[in-house]
């Protein structure tokens, strides 16, 4: 029997050693670059086109929101009925609204409203969601039962419906960006809290939590140092996505007429105001719709890129 070729059969075969040289058991490789979850996620994000497209878009949107004057010198509130529904002309590239206002300028100045509502709601939802979710998930027991039931109640009222009720209690002149953000945020947090709670309950089972208890770390420190950092990833994802949701909610409420008053620039208002003339001058409705959709698209794209980067399981799904 040859020693190089395995001839199956009853014989005793031994592979030549040089074919599979024996490696040290459990050798440590110190040459590779250090990595951890956040660093890996960033590496992954950097390689995604969707991340760059959405980031550039969002950057642009934020700049427009902060410095609208840079992009349009026309006063969006200076309207003249003689231009009502007129098409594009010199200096007014997107034409006029029914009331004779400059469409382009109104879109530019409406950006700030959408972005600030989005941001305020997101901060609110993140804050409420993290506090409720963390306490319920980490402390468990009756605290969890009470908080979860409260969350269930808020969760059972679709947040736009709730905002409709809240907003309809205000007179038009009392409504502003803060009021509408509160109305949306107050009912949008339970999903964030639920996600965090579930994640914390999962992380709490990990042996490194027991290990932290065994060295005598206090509960609060365990929560802050070990549990929260390891359960925050899905919350970041849902928060980014909820920013898009908040922008849509504001536009919907404004479109319905329970959002911002007409004195505040808002894409939703503009769309609502243009709907009666859809047949004759569709573009006055379409332009703000495009602005709204692109903004929402940018935040959703960012959220999904972040989710895919943070969740190895999602990465495998690509």
């Amino acid at each position: 029997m040859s020693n190089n070729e395995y001839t199956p059969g009853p014989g005793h075969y031994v592979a030549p050693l040089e074919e599979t040289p024996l490696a040290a058991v459990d050798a440590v490789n110190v040459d590779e670059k250090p990595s951890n979850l956040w660093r890996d996620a960033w590496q992954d994000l950097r390689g995604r086109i969707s991340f760059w497209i959405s980031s550039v878009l969002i950057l642009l949107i934020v700049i427009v929101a902060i410095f609208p004057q840079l992009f349009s010198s026309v006063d969006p509130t200076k309207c003249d009925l003689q231009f009502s529904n007129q098409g594009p002309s010199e200096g007014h590239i997107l034409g006029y609204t029914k009331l004779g206002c400059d469409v382009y300028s109104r879109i530019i100045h409406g950006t700030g409203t959408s972005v600030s509502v989005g941001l305020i709601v997101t901060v609110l939802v993140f804050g409420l969601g993290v506090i409720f979710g963390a306490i319920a998930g980490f402390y468990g027991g009756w605290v969890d039962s009470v908080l979860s039931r409260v969350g269930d109640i808020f969760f059972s009222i679709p947040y736009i419906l709730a905002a409709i009720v809240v907003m309809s209690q205000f007179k038009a002149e009392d409504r502003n960006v803060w009021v509408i953000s509160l109305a949306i945020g107050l009912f949008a947090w339970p999903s964030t809290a639920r996600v965090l709670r579930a994640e914390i309950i999962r992380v709490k089972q990990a042996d490194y939590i027991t290990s932290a208890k065994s060295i005598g770390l206090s509960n609060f420190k365990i929560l802050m140092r070990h549990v929260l950092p390891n359960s925050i990833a899905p919350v970041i994802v849902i928060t980014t996505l909820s920013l898009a949701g908040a922008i849509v909610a504001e536009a919907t409420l404004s479109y319905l007429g329970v959002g911002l008053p007409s004195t505040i620039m808002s894409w939703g208002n503009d769309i609502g105001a243009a709907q009666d003339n859809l047949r004759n001058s569709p573009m006055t409705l379409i332009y703000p719709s495009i602005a709204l959709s692109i903004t929402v698209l940018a935040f959703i794209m960012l959220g999904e890129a972040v989710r895919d980067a943070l969740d190895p399981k999602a990465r495998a799904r690509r």
Partner: protein
Amino acid sequence: MARYIFFRLLQAIPVLLGTTLLIYFMVFAMPGDPILALFGDKTPTPAQLEALREQYHLNEPFIMQYLRFLGGIFVGDLGTTYSGQPVISVLQSTFPVTLRLALIALILETVFGIGLGLLSGLRKGGASDNIILAFSLLLISLPIFVIAFVLQYLLTFQTSIFRPTVGEGAPWGDLILPGIVLATASVAQIIRLTRTSVIETMGQDFVRTAYGKGLSRGRVIPVHILRNSLIPVVTYIGTDLGVMMVGATVTEGIFNVPGVGRTLFQAIKQSEGPTVVSFVTVMVLLYLILNLLIDLLYAVLDPRIRYVK
């Protein structure tokens, strides 16, 4: 199973009380005066105000108002609209229309959502997967009223494929376009969720074992992959009904569908505060009941839930 249903119903009671209480509390605690808001920019006379307050029991303490409402639900009294009609009779005429619309939308979104999601998941990474993903991303980014207006403009004003608004009695045919609009709001999410779920299920050990015991692909895909992937999708459809309520309000308003949504839509447009509250409450109750049904369906789909003691 009976046990599960019983406990699920028991759990629903505090949530039901809680949500209605919350809505009433919001209305009560808000700084604005709903009666004043009714008049918009006009200034009512004190007598008018008093009469309206009486009519809506707004001069009673909060808890009394709430109990009155709660008691009303049990005897089918949901209050009266601004124009004096009882809410319940408005519901009787409008609810069947909305139900029809919702049914069309639900069928469309589940058929297309699950179908495209399954296709996309099974062909992960392929051309059809990428096209479906891009398409769903686009749909997610479009708010429902934008979709409604674009489709209304293209399919009715421009090409007259559909009638722009719904005719008398809301026949099924007229509801197709609003149904499509309503479905688009959720179909993209269902596509994505199904896709994710299918891909995850395909990686499960029991799928490999199913192939291992000699089953054909034609059997494994529906019986083991799709069946298991449906569980999270059904859960999603449950919570998504809330989005659908808002969607129905917008869609029915735009296409003039004589349903519950349009009534709310018009009440909002005309700043009829109390009517808005009544109808939102009705929708929330409906949402809770539907979610309860979805939960029961969930138990049918997943025996692990059914047998929890």
